[in-house]
């Protein structure tokens, strides 16, 4: 069996794939709102009040930025900022104590934002690969700032 990576030079066709793009196109507004609420609730469930606010904020951003790339970038940047917040808030001296963790709440928050954001990005991309099977060609990476094709198609159809 050949590995997937050996076939990773195809063009991006996920959006046009009957199992992926068509299904996504059929996703109505109500479903998307429901999924959005579900996502926000999931962030609340796993992240508490702060997590819920992050989830709502991400859903709000989703109205403006529909590309998964935005959320990938946001997530990676948030997580990349975490070590610097640790450095700014101070490292341990002498013996390490549990206070080291409680002192670095900002890092916890940043990583939380990052996780929620990359999770959202991954969820947004799942329709692109759905039904392709392990042996079909994978989609090309979504260029930063560009809209994912299915969403663009949806937008073109006049749906918000």
């Amino acid at each position, binding site marked *: *069996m*050949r*590995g*997937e*990576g*050996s076939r*990773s030079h195809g063009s991006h066709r996920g959006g046009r794939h009957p*199992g992926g793009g068509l299904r996504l196109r059929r996703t109505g507004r109500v479903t998307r709102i429901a999924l959005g609420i579900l996502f926000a609730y999931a962030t609340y*469930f*796993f*992240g*508490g009040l702060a*997590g819920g606010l992050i989830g709502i904020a991400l859903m709000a951003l989703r109205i403006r930025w529909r590309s998964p*790339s935005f959320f*990938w*970038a946001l*997530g*990676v940047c948030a*997580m*990349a900022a*975490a*070590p610097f917040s*640790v*450095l700014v808030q101070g*490292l*341990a*001296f002498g*013996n*390490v*104590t*549990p206070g*080291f*963790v*409680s002192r*670095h*709440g900002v*890092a*916890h928050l*940043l*990583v*939380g934002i*990052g*996780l929620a954001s*990359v*999770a959202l*990005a*991954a969820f947004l*991309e*799942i329709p692109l*690969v*759905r*039904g*392709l*099977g*392990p*042996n079909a060609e*994978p*989609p*090309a*990476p979504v260029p930063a700032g560009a809209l994912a094709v299915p969403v663009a198609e949806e937008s073109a159809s006049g749906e918000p």
Partner: protein
Amino acid sequence: MRGVAARYRRLDESSRRRFQRWLLWIGLLLVAFVPPFFSQAGRYAADTKLPVWFAPTRYLINSLKVWQSSPYLGHEQHDGLLFPMATFVAIFRGIGLPVWAVERLWHGLLLFTSATGMVLLVDLFNGKRVTIAQPLAAAVYAFNPYTLAFGLHGSGVFIPYALLPMLLVVWIRGLREPKGWLWPAVVALVFFGMGGGNGAPQVYALIPLAAFLLWAVFVERSVRAGQAALFAAKAGALAVVINLYWLVGLTTQGVANDIAFSEQPKVINLTSSFAESLRLLGFWGFYGSDRFGPWYPTLRRFFTSPVFVLSSFLVPVLAFAAAWRSRWRTRLLFVLLAVLAVVVMAGTYPVTRSTPFGQALLHAYSSIPGASGLRTTYKFGSTLALSIALLAGIGAAEAWGWLRARAAWRPVALIAAMVLVASVVLNAYPLWTGDLYQHSRTTKAIPGYWRQAEADLQKAVKNHRVFFAPGGLFAYYSWGGPLGGIAEAYPQLPSVRRPALPIMQRYGSDLLAATEQPYQLGPSVPGATAALLRRMGVAFVVLQNDLDFARSNTARPTDLQILAHEPGLQPEASFGEPGENVPGSGSLSQRDRNLAKAEKKLPPVQIFRVSDPLPVIRAESGSPLIVSGDAFGLSPVLSSGLLGSDQPVLYSGNLSAAGLQALAADGPEFVVTDSNRRRTWDFSAVRQDFSYTLPADQGGRAVGYNLFGGRVDTQTVAIASTGTNGSAHISASGYGSPFAPEPWLKPENVFDDNPSTIWGVNGFNSPIGQWVQISFDHPISVSRLTLDPYVGRRGSRQLTGIQLMFSDGSVVSRRVAPGLTVISFGQRTTRSIRLQISNVRPGPFGGLIGLKDITIPGLTVNQALRLPTDLFDAIRGNPSLQSLLSAAPLAYVFDRGRSNGSLPDEETGLDRIFQVPASRGFDLAAVVRLDPRVPDQEVDRLLLGTTSVVATSSGRAHNNIGNRASLAIDGDPATGWTSNGTRGQWIQVSFPAKRLDHLSLLGFVDARHSALREVQIELSDGTKLIRPVATDGKLTVHFPAKTVSSVKVTVLAAGLPTSLVPIPPPAGIRELTIPGVKLTGFPSARTPLGCYEGPGVELDGRPVSVRLGTGTTQLLTGGRFQISACDSGALSLAAGQHELRISGVLQPVTASLRSGFTTTAATAPSTPSTAVKATPAGYRVDVKGATAPFYLVLGQNVSTAWQASIGGISLGPSLVLDGFSAGWRVARTGDFTIQVTYAAQARQNLAFAVSGLGLPLVVLVASFGWRRRRRRRTIA
């Protein structure tokens, strides 16, 4: 080298790939196996279980048996280490390799397996061609803080981590070829390779499998749901069959205890923030430290070095960045798995305000059976590491290809690659720096003297046990830190050691904790320890003087020497040279240095023989003693002489009315004790490990050893009441130190009207916000109260502000100064008063902040301990049992909560409430000592009775009775009053009014006293005379004749003439001569003292006249002596509740009230002889000469799985005998055989059989399937 390169260039593509592949394997082999050999070379590093390494063959044999009789009085084993760990170790130890080398091989194998699995997983997604993906993913997964700090320190539960990538590979391949049995069999075999352990890592390993199945069905759509489900079912069924041998162990009592008594979620998730979890840290132990430094010093740089902080975040961040820019589809699954893993690892973080997910977890832990076993959520880190490694590896390979294809980006590619490699290398730095193992947890070899001692003990012990003192959570020796005690290194030796965590149904653990009291800071009852050991079947006691007691947090050698003087123990042998490996204790204090000096004369191993030990399995006959309480009550029962040497002991807490009825024919005797106290226990320590005695409504559902199902009626509980307002409830936000319980700082102390006791909070944390509260059943009216704050030494912090909070919500804030502070406020009616610390003046030394007393006008708070009521609850409504208890010998035994003198006592006196079933007379007996803190006049009253002349003082030096005030008016200049200071100290003498015109005094003139320089003499009519004192200490004062009834002399100035001493010695008066006033007639040293009636001994509020069974010397030197009621048999108690109080001048040690116990031992029926033979499932006991019912004591911890039968007829459920043992009452007489079996062994045997038969079948299925697959491929 150039030749090799040239030859490489000449190879064709496939040969190159093969070469690269070999290079990869060789590289991984070297990295996995070589560095561990260079870390602490030659030393075994503590890992999982000591016997696995030091006695692997014996361990393998023992692991076939569920019941292990050593070293904790018997327990069920559920290690699950039989395969592969113990088998691997046994094979390599069997060929003669040293322990440390086998361990390094094992660790290397685990690391290599992790890396190998990761390579194969990358192959699956990225193709078999070797790129940067395989080595990078393998390195990220196999060498990180999780593997190197957490995994290798307990490799038994690390195996699932090592095999997870492999498991996922075969699972994915199985889902892609779901038909047939090949892949289900291979999945089951890989799962089998993960071994047992506590099962949690295996459960966590199932999550990525389930996730991939969902992915394949619903996203990839590469397999139909039905096919996937069938494949999973087949794999699951085969896996259950061949893993059944350890899965059945998850239902054992030991697993339940581990879950109940080991660290809880609030500790486990204290540090598992998203950020820390993401970088594969976050395990709570990584952030712990003690006075010896961090618990995981190898990880310290991840918290202190900016470079390491950056590097630890870099890999996961790059992994997510790679997922963004990468092309392979399944990356999305691993992104989501990584997110899920971080969230699950965080668990209930933050523990003080958990997320809904955290709260759901807590709910699941408490309500879903077995869920609590998954609470170490850090174990899900395997999935995070796998996802990160995969994303980073494949992403890096793609990025590398992209960058290399663009010439302009090549330098960037090079720098990026260097940074990435550097980051991976830094994350694995313990591997490269030789810090893989912490030196204090390593051992070179067990010293020869231990091997010799073990060999000698093995020969001598026969049917008995060897007790190793002291116990502890971990055992660090001067020669190494194997963590398990030396007893565990010799599983063939029948041994007993106190574990920290409770074992089985916890009776044995309770008994061992009680047995260790004398040298673990608790009180000592001479002879009781040997008697308890004798009942455990202990023939030899081994003192481990070479323990690093400070690091092990256990008793030091000089503490253990109390056993050298224990009646019933005789010295047997010692091993090692005096001082060899016996640790000193640094130079903390002069006392420490003195102790260390004494310890250096001790050999490392001392062995004592127990007199006349009972066989482990034995018959006991005679009247059983039914004890209400627990093992902590047995020592005072033994010292009271209430327990015969071979008398069976049962706990009433285990006996129902029917159970009591069944014992009635044996003529039982009853003792109610103030033991089984409701306390919270800290099972991470073996000393200073329990709280003060709690009220019934505090401590939660399960406290302490939770004996008898945790029923409150079986416990001794604290109760408080007020004279008019019913019961009171005293509580506090905390007390004492956060590091170890300090029961002497209990909140009740502020309401006991005793300024020598304190409630306070200790440690370095801020005490602001801490509170103590009293609540009432009925509201009280209050307008002021008086506070007496605790004042520490100079330089310590001081309470300066307090808030009073009332039940109506009103708050009163006040400043507090040292000394009594009266706080007035508007009249109000309240049901509670809370005093909350609102302000503290800091001090450089920190220290205790608290209150000595709170006085509320018109309110007296009575505090007592209520004894267990289970016995009386059981007989209620049962006339035959009531008459049994009314006629049977009955005693109450009280033991004051106290330490061995090195720490303050929990209680200063005894106040006990108990029930009496029927009217009867009781003999009072108590062991007491003169309380050194009692006022001078109370001592005189004890010695002379009530006198017309009374001498009091501001205090006496060192609380020494020989320095009291009356010795200044006894007419003997050789004695005198020595105060507790200089300026302001006073002595006062009251006497019947008489006319005086002069008096004189003689001060001390010696180096041990400050000479009096000036005094004030105050007469009862208000006359004050200030006079200088001559240098010879003499002073005579004349004044106009007047009628006087008291004289008070106050020291105004005193000091040594030429003193350079910073703290002057106390001032004092040899003789105060007041004409016609003397206090004489003190009894001579040896004259027995008579009866005493005064405050101190009260029964139901009435003073009891007691006979002091000692002379003056014994009394005044603080020695213990016995008291008894003056009127023999006069203490008649009616049925109902009673209260005994012994406090004040006579400080009790133990006390008892007994009725119907004869002083001469009753003639017990002869005990039948027993011959014991071990059988595969238990024991066969041949009984000969049974003439009456008797009790069979198994000598093993009680368990519901123990069963006994005679000729196939069951003896019923086992009893708890002698404080810990399973046992049965046997009514049959004559000669017969009792079969004792451990029922769980049959289930275990069945599981072994199923797994044993299933394993070759599964292997066969897998091999046939593989051949068939190859054949098909060949044909294709």
